[in-house]
C-alpha cells in the first residue's frame, strides 16, 4: 500500500495521506492513505459506517479535511475546495434533483449550465433507460430507481474528470446494473477516473480492476485484479 502511494506521481487523480475527517468529533476517516491514478476504475467496499461516503464527499470538496493532506486532480482539497468541486461529479446519497421539475428538465438544467446540447440530454437519458414517459414525470413522483437513473444521466451529461458515485447500483435492476457498469467503463476509457462505493454484501458484478476495502475509517485491503 505504501509503495502504491509513493509511486503515484503527478498523474494521480486522488492522492490521500494520513487523511482524518471528523464529523462532529467522530473520526469518520481515521488516517487514510490512498492513491488512485487517473483513468482508473475503483470500487470502494465496506460495511455501513466504515467511511465510504465520507471519503467520496471529501474528494468532492464537500466535507472539510480535518488532518492529513489530500490532492484531487492535482488540486489541494484543504485550500481550494471550490476548484475541486468544479472538476468532480458526485452522486451522493441524495440525487440532487428538484422534485418539481420533470426528470428531463432536471437533466436539461444541468446540460444548460455545463454547455451541453439537447442531443446530449437525449443520449444520456436513453443510455440510462429513462424512457419518454418517465422523463416527462415530475422527479418527486418517480421511484427511487428512476430518480437514481435521472441523477446518473445528469452526471453523464456533465462529463466530469473524476466521477464519485455513492452506491450507484442501489435500486437498479440487474440489466440496469450492467448497463451502468458499461457506462462507467466507457467513462474511464475516455480518460475520466471513476470511484464508486458498493455495500460489502453486494456481489461484484463484472470484474472491477481495483477493489479497496474500508474498515473503521482506514483502508483494510487494496486488491488489483489483473485483467483476464
Amino acid at each position, binding site marked *: 500500500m505504501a509503495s502504491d502511494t509513493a509511486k503515484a506521481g503527478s498523474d494521480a487523480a486522488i492522492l490521500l495521506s494520513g487523511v482524518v475527517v471528523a464529523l462532529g468529533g467522530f473520526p469518520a476517516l481515521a488516517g487514510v492513505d490512498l492513491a488512485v491514478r487517473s483513468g482508473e476504475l475503483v470500487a470502494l467496499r465496506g460495511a455501513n459506517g466504515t467511511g465510504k461516503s465520507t471519503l467520496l*464527499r471529501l474528494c468532492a*470538496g464537500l466535507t472539510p479535511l480535518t488532518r492529513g493532506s489530500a490532492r484531487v486532480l492535482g488540486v489541494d482539497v484543504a485550500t481550494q475546495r471550490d476548484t475541486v468541486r468544479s472538476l468532480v461529479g458526485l452522486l451522493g446519497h441524495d440525487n440532487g434533483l428538484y422534485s418539481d421539475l420533470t426528470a428531463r428538465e432536471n437533466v436539461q438544467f444541468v446540460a444548460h449550465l455545463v454547455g451541453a446540447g439537447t442531443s446530449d440530454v437525449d443520449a444520456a437519458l436513453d443510455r440510462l433507460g429513462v424512457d419518454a414517459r418517465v422523463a416527462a414525470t415530475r422527479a418527486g413522483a418517480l421511484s427511487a430507481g428512476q430518480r437514481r437513473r435521472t441523477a446518473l444521466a445528469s452526471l453523464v451529461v456533465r462529463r466530469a474528470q473524476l466521477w464519485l458515485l455513492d452506491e450507484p447500483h442501489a435500486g437498479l435492476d440487474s440489466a440496469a446494473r450492467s448497463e451502468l457498469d458499461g457506462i462507467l467503463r466507457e467513462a474511464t476509457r475516455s480518460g475520466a477516473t471513476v470511484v464508486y462505493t458498493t455495500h460489502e454484501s453486494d456481489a461484484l458484478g463484472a470484474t472491477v480492476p481495483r477493489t479497496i476495502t474500508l474498515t473503521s475509517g482506514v483502508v483494510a485491503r487494496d486488491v488489483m485484479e489483473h485483467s483476464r
Partner: protein
Amino acid sequence: MNTVLAIARKDLTIEWRTRTLLARVVPFALLVLVLFAVALDSEPLILRAAAGLVWLAMLFATMLLVQRSFDLETADSALDALLGFVSSSSKVFFGKALSLFVQLFSLAVVLVCAAVVLYGARVEGGGVVLLVTVLLTATVGLALVGTLYGVVVANMNGRDSLLPLLALPVLAPLLIGATRATEAAFGSDTIDVSNGWAWAALLAVYAVVFGSAGAAAFAPLAQGDS
C-alpha cells in the same frame, strides 16, 4: 449571464408549478394588511401608516419566500451539485436573487393595489413614477439581502428563526427608505415628492452595496457543509 438566467428560470418554473407565492404568500401578506387595519382601528391612522404596513408585509413575505427558495435547493442536496456546475458561485447568487426579485415585485404590486383599495391610499401624477421606482429599487434590495442571508442559514437547524434575526436588522434601512418614499408617492403631507426621490436614491445605493457584497460573500458562505 446565461447561467444566471437559467437558474432564475428554473426557480420560477418551480414556483409556477407549485404556486407557493400565489396560493400561500399573497394571501398571507394580504391577511397581514387586514390584521394591521383591524388592530389600528382608525381610518386616518391606517391611511398614515399605509406605506409602512405595505413594506412590513413585504418584509415578512420575503422571509417566507427566501426560506422556500433555499428549501428547494437543500431538500435533495441540489445546491451542492449546483455549486459544482457553475463557473462562479456569484452566478448562483444573482440567479436566485433574480427569481426572488420577480416574485417580490409581483407581490409588491398586489400589496400596493390592496393599500389603495383597503386603506384608501391615493397615487397621482408624479407619484406614479416615484412609486414604480421605489417598488423596483426596494424589491431589488429585498431580493439581494434575502438571498445573501438565505444561503447563510440554508442547511442549518433552526433556520426559520435565524433568518429573520439576521436579515431584519440589515433590512431596516430599506424599510425606512421604502416607507418614506412610498408615503411621498401616496401624497402624504408629512413628506413631499422630492424628498421621496432622495429616499429612492438611498434604496438604489443600498441595492448596489448589497449586490456587490453578496457577490463577494456568497462563495465563502455557500462552501460545503457536511
